C-alpha cells in the first residue's frame, strides 16, 4: 500500500511538471529543453527555505514559485529575441548552465553529494506531515488544485486571445507587444509550477542531488508530454505523465536485471516518440498541432 502511495506521489509530481511544460509548448508553441532546470531550481530553493526557516507550507510554496518564476525571465527574454533552433539551443544552454552550477557550487548546493535530511513540510508551521498516507493525501490535494488552475488558464478568454494573436494571420507589429506579454506570463507560470513540483519532491524524498535535474530529465518530461499529447485541455499531459510513471513501475515486475530495465525502458520511449511523430504528431490525446 505504501508502495502504491509512493507511485501516486511521484505521479502527482510528474503531472505538475508535464502540465507546466504543456503550457509553453501547447499554448505558445515554444519547445523548451529546460523544464528540469526549473524543477531543480525549485527543489534547491525549497530546500533552503525548509532548512532555514520554520514557515508554513503555503508561504514557502509561494516564495519558491515566485523565485523560480523570476528565473524564467532569462528564457522569456530569449524567446522574444531568438527564433526556432536558436531558441531551443538557448533553453538547452540554460539547462546545462543550471546543472553545472548545482553540481559545482559545492558550498551552497553540496555539489554531487547533494543535501540530505531535508525536513518535511509543515502545514501551518506546526503540524508536520510525516506519514506517507498524510503526504499522499496532501500532494493529491495540491495536484488537483494545480490541475484546476491549469485548465482555467488554458481555457480563459485571456489565453485564447493571446493564442489567437500569436497566429500567423495577424500583422506582426500589432501583436508583438501582446506576444511578449504572453510569453513572459506563460513562462513565469510554467517555471513557477515546475518549482513547486521541485519543492514537493525535495521535501518528500528528503534528499536532493543534481542528478535528478539533468538534460535527460528534461527530455523525459518532454517525452511524457508528447506521449500524452500537447493539448489545450489538461487530459493529454495527465495521461502522458500517468503512462510514463506507471510504465516505469510495471517494468520492475517484468524481471529484467535492474540496470538493463532502465535502458530498455528508455529505448521503448525513444521508439514510441519516433512512431508518434510519424503517425500522430500531436500525441495520444493531443489536439494542438506543433508548428
Amino acid at each position, binding site marked *: 500500500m505504501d508502495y502504491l502511495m509512493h507511485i501516486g506521489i511521484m505521479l502527482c509530481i510528474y503531472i505538475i511538471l508535464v502540465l507546466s511544460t504543456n503550457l509553453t509548448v501547447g499554448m505558445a*508553441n515554444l*519547445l523548451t529543453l529546460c523544464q528540469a532546470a526549473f524543477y531543480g531550481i525549485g527543489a534547491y530553493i525549497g530546500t533552503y527555505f525548509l532548512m532555514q526557516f520554520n514557515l508554513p507550507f503555503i508561504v514557502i510554496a509561494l516564495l519558491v514559485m515566485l523565485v523560480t518564476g523570476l528565473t524564467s525571465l532569462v528564457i522569456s527574454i*530569449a524567446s522574444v*529575441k*531568438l527564433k*526556432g*533552433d*536558436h531558441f*531551443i*539551443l*538557448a533553453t*538547452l*544552454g*540554460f539547462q*546545462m*548552465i543550471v*546543472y*553545472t*552550477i548545482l*553540481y*559545482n557550487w559545492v558550498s551552497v548546493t553540496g555539489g554531487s553529494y547533494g543535501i540530505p535530511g531535508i525536513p518535511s513540510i509543515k502545514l501551518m508551521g506546526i503540524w508536520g506531515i510525516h506519514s506517507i498516507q498524510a503526504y499522499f493525501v496532501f500532494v493529491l490535494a495540491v495536484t488537483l488544485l494545480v490541475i484546476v488552475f491549469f485548465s482555467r488558464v488554458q481555457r480563459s478568454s485571456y489565453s485564447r486571445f493571446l493564442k489567437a494573436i500569436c497566429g500567423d494571420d495577424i500583422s506582426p507589429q500589432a501583436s508583438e507587444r501582446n506576444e511578449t506579454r504572453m510569453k513572459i506570463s506563460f513562462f513565469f507560470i510554467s517555471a513557477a509550477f515546475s518549482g513547486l513540483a521541485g519543492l514537493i519532491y525535495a521535501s518528500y524524498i528528503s534528499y536532493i542531488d543534481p542528478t535528478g535535474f539533468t538534460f535527460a530529465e528534461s*527530455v523525459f518530461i*518532454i*517525452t511524457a508530454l*508528447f506521449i500524452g499529447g500537447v493539448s489545450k485541455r489538461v487530459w493529454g499531459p495527465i495521461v502522458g505523465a500517468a503512462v510514463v510513471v506507471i510504465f516505469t513501475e510495471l517494468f520492475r515486475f517484468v524481471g529484467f536485471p535492474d540496470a*538493463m530495465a532502465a*535502458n*530498455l525502458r*528508455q*529505448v521503448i*520511449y*525513444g*521508439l*514510441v*516518440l*519516433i512512431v508518434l*511523430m*510519424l503517425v500522430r*504528431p500531436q500525441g495520444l490525446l493531443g489536439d494542438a*498541432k*506543433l*508548428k
Partner: protein
Amino acid sequence: MLGQFLINGIITGILYSLLAIGFALVYNTTKLFHIVAAAIYVFSAFMFYLFAVTLGLPILVAAFVTILLTMGLSLLTDVSVYRPLKKRKASGNVTMIASIGMMIAIVNLLVMFFGTGEKSIKTAVCSSFSIGSLNVSIPQLWQLVVGVFVIVVFLLLINITNWGIRLRVLSEGGGLNENSGDNMSNTRTMVFLLSGAFIAISACLSLYDISFSPYMGIEVFITAIVAMFIGGVGRYGTCVLGGIILGVLQAVTSYYLSSSWNNAVTFILLLIILFLRPQGIAGYKKQTV
C-alpha cells in the same frame, strides 16, 4: 603550464571541429536539427572499441570498418525517419522530437550492450615528445595531423569540385528543397554519408587518446553543436573557428577554475553569441523568405 593547456585545447578543438562539420553538413543543407548525431557519435566510439579491443583488429582496419558502419547508420536515420517525416510535411519541432527519440533509443540500446563504464583502447603507456616545456603525446600528434589533414582536404574539395561548390551554395542559401534540382535525393544521401564519416573520424581519433563513456559522448557532441553555432551557420570553415575557440576556452577554464565548469562557460558564451550575433561570428545572416 598554460601553454600546455593551450596545446591540449587546440587539439580538442580540432576534434570538436570535425564533429561540428558533421553536424553542419546536415544542418546547413537540410535545416534539420540533427541531434541524433550525438548518438551516432557514441555508436561510432563503441564500434571502434569493439573492433580494436574486443575483436583485436589492427587499428587502421578497425577505424575503416567503423567509418563505414557509422556512415551507414547516419544514412539510416535519414531514410528511416527524416524522409518519411518530410513526406508528411512535419514541422521543425516535430522532426526534432523524432530526432531526440532516435537519440534516446540508440544511446540506451548501446548502453544495454556495452554498459556505461569508461572505455579506452590504450594498451600501453604512450610515448610523447616535448618541444621546450610543452608535451605532446603520440596519440595527440595523430589527432592533430589526421584532424587537420581531413579538414583541409574537405575545405579544399568544397571549393574546387563541382559537387562541393553545389554543397556550399545549398548551405549558404535556402538549403535542400524541391527547387534545388533533380538529384536532390542523391545530394541528401551524400550529405548524410559524409556527416557520418566526419563523426566517425572524430570518434576514432578521440577514443585513440582518452577513455570514453556514452554520457560524456553526448556532452562532447552538444559542445560541437555549440561550436558550429558560435563559429557561424551556413559555412564550414566557421566550424573550425568555433571548435578551436571552444577547445581553447575550455582548456583555459580547466586551468584557472576546474574542468567541471566547462559546460557553464561554453553555454554562457553560446548565449552571448546568440543574443549579440545570432548568425555566429562568421556566419551568413539568415535569409527569411
